[in-house]
């Protein structure tokens, strides 16, 4: 029991050190933005896939925004992927397609496997370009975003690209404000540090792009995965393709406004991530592949992020158990556990990463909310742990994991 506790504390300390390394790198290290200055080029044809399942509240906003981008119009095709919607999504998409003939080509999916990965997989049948960008329907791209996301594909080593997600509905309630901080830490510090350090920036599946030849080389979208983006990141990495992060390619999104929606979202992320851990964990760390040593280590640690939640809980339980068993002295290990636990879990962003992100974003007042993050942390750690338990139970029963769409809150389009 003691050795298990020591093992957990060592693992958690390892993650804490990793997060400190990232934070210090963002504050003081060399910052890599190699593709951000590309503004003149022979821009390639691009398809923008907009995944939409019952998105009547938000779909018009993104389609209108995409019609205003600065990318050459003759080289940009927008494909709204209407995945079995039962609300007014189809009518809105068709109206836009009529208003912009040739520029918006709807893909209406009437049946088939539910979920975004399956919908994207089907939509790839009509993609004729080498570069595909993916947006969820609640995003609002700015005018220069498409060029910024396409620019890295001039690098023949790049298979995927990821932009920064910025919450739009920040001021709704405490949850949206905490998610705003969490996103800032996750992107501004964690993702950019992994880009700086040539580790494994993660494909996020939205505000993102993929090279079609690379996607086909690694087998296309995996419709069995709950997080097709994480799955894609690792398959690209194993095949020698890089995923790059563009911190200045920012796009507004809508974050969950209620705790149940947030809990469902993070549980889906955790399940999908753990799926990827089981599938790729061993292969990335020890298998024969094109990843560098530092990519192997970071890639493995990144896959383990969500499994740290139940491990942290187990660590606390073990600490209590050894205390009541009268095993002493373990003050050092327990103190270390208490100190590091909070720096490990969460949506990839420890509290000091969030503080650093707020500083880098030049936002002064929102940092005061930092103590409330313990609330988000507590919800996350129990939700993620619960999802791990249910995932193991589902695996034992042989039940298939289900895709749950995140509910939207925007009042009108």
């Amino acid at each position: 029991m003691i050795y298990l506790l020591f093992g957990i504390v060592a693992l958690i300390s390892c993650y804490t050190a990793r997060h400190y390394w990232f934070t210090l790198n963002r504050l003081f290290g060399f910052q890599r933005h190699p593709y951000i200055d590309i503004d003149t080029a022979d821009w390639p044809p691009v398809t923008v896939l907009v995944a939409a399942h019952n998105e009547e509240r938000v779909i018009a906003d993104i389609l209108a925004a995409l019609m205003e981008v600065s990318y050459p119009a003759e080289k940009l095709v927008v494909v709204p992927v209407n995945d079995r919607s039962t609300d007014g999504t189809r009518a809105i998409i068709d109206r836009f397609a009529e208003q912009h003939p040739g520029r918006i080509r709807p893909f209406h999916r009437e049946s088939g496997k539910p979920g975004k990965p399956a919908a994207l997989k089907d939509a790839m049948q009509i993609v004729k370009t080498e570069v595909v960008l993916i947006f969820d329907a609640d995003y609002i791209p700015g005018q220069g975003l498409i060029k910024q996301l396409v620019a890295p594909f001039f690098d023949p080593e790049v298979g995927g690209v990821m932009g920064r997600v910025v919450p739009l509905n920040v001021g709704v309630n405490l949850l949206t404000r905490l998610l705003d901080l969490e996103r800032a830490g996750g992107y501004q510090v964690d993702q950019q540090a992994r880009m700086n350090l040539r580790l494994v920036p993660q494909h996020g599946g939205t505000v993102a792009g993929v090279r079609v030849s690379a996607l086909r080389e690694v087998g296309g979208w995996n419709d069995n995965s709950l997080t097709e983006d994480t799955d894609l990141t690792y398959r690209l990495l194993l095949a020698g393709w890089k995923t790059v992060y563009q911190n200045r390619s920012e796009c507004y999104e809508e974050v969950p406004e209620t705790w149940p929606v947030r809990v469902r979202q993070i549980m889906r992320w955790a399940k999908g991530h753990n799926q990827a851990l089981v599938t790729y964990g061993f292969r990335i760390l020890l298998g024969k592949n094109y990843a560098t040593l530092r990519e192997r280590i970071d890639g493995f640690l990144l896959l383990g992020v969500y499994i740290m939640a139940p491990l942290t809980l187990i660590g606390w339980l073990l600490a209590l158990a050894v205390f009541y068993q009268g095993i002493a002295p373990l003050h050092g290990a327990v103190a270390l556990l208490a100190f590091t636990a909070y720096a490990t879990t969460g949506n990839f962003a420890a509290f000091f990463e969030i503080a650093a992100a707020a500083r880098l974003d030049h936002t002064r007042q929102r940092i005061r909310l930092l103590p409330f993050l313990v609330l988000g942390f507590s919800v996350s750690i129990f939700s993620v742990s619960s999802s791990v338990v249910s995932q193991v139970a589902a695996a034992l029963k042989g039940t298939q994991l289900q895709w749950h769409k995140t509910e939207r809150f925007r009042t009108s389009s």
Partner: protein
Amino acid sequence: MNPPTAALVLVLLAGTLFVLPLLPAIGELRLQRDAKPLDIIQQHAGEIKHFAHGFREYIEPLLPALEQCVQAGTNASGKLPGGEKYLLLGRPVDPDFEFPTEKQCCPVIVAAGTDTFFPSGLTFAKEVYAAGQLTGGRRNTYRAVFGEKGLLLERGCKVLRWAHAAEKLEAQGDCELYGRISSDQEIQLSAGCFFQRLHAPRIIAGERIPSPVVDFHSQAQAPKVTAARRLFEQDVDIRPGDVIAGDVVTRGKLRIRAGARIFGSVKSNGATVLEEGVWVMGSVISAGPMRIGRRCRIGGLLIAEHEMAIDADSQCGTPDQPTTVSAPTITLAPGATIFGTLWAREKGHVVERL
């Protein structure tokens, strides 16, 4: 202190310590002082001529008055609706003309309606507009300059924010060009010039060297691409005169020997060297330093994460297919030509020889 009181004090103390950091948080939650989305760039795409176009619109109301000055051959001064002072020059500046100055600095917007010459050693703290060809005297400093025709910056001039010329923009030796410099025709920089961000259909370092422009797309000898990408985990050395179809990616250094032809793009994670006369139809990307030899031809982008040097008579992009050349520091030798954008994020300069 009896035990119950001690326990109460302890609980109160612990409670206070717990609540203390929450006070600013509760305050922010109630007052919502920073509850807005992060301000991200939504409305423009970082266009290099953004400020130049903005100034052109800003000065538009002055142009009828400037035209009247030109017709009458007089100068005039006044204030714009926003309170900004201006000086309209309706005739070429005489050698003994005195600009209004405060502490050796001209503090007003200057608009010249004719071809004109500015005397040496002046500092223009506000924008300068030139309807005709403007020749700026030696060691002048400009905040920003807009030329409807050509701009000639004589030796030692400085531009602090931006400059735009509809026709040729020429900077003589030792000019320092900070910020955004653009032309609708051509930019020519002499040896000793410092630059950051340039954009023009043609950017030339030093004197123009008459040499043919390669049309990569009409290369009859282009081989058929058989492999989409070659990935190497070690250093790569491409032999002289080799012809390669497809992309080349190396995790180490890359050296392409003289006269080799690559019908694709190349990426190196170490130092990249292109020897004399190499052609790359696609992009050249390097995570390390990059050196482009003499008479090379690059069809696509040129991106280096560290320093980049481009030797004499090399060309990046073509008139029909402009491109971007970008690195933190860029050194150009005379005769190096870029069609499109040249962006040295920290420091770019033109030297006599590499």
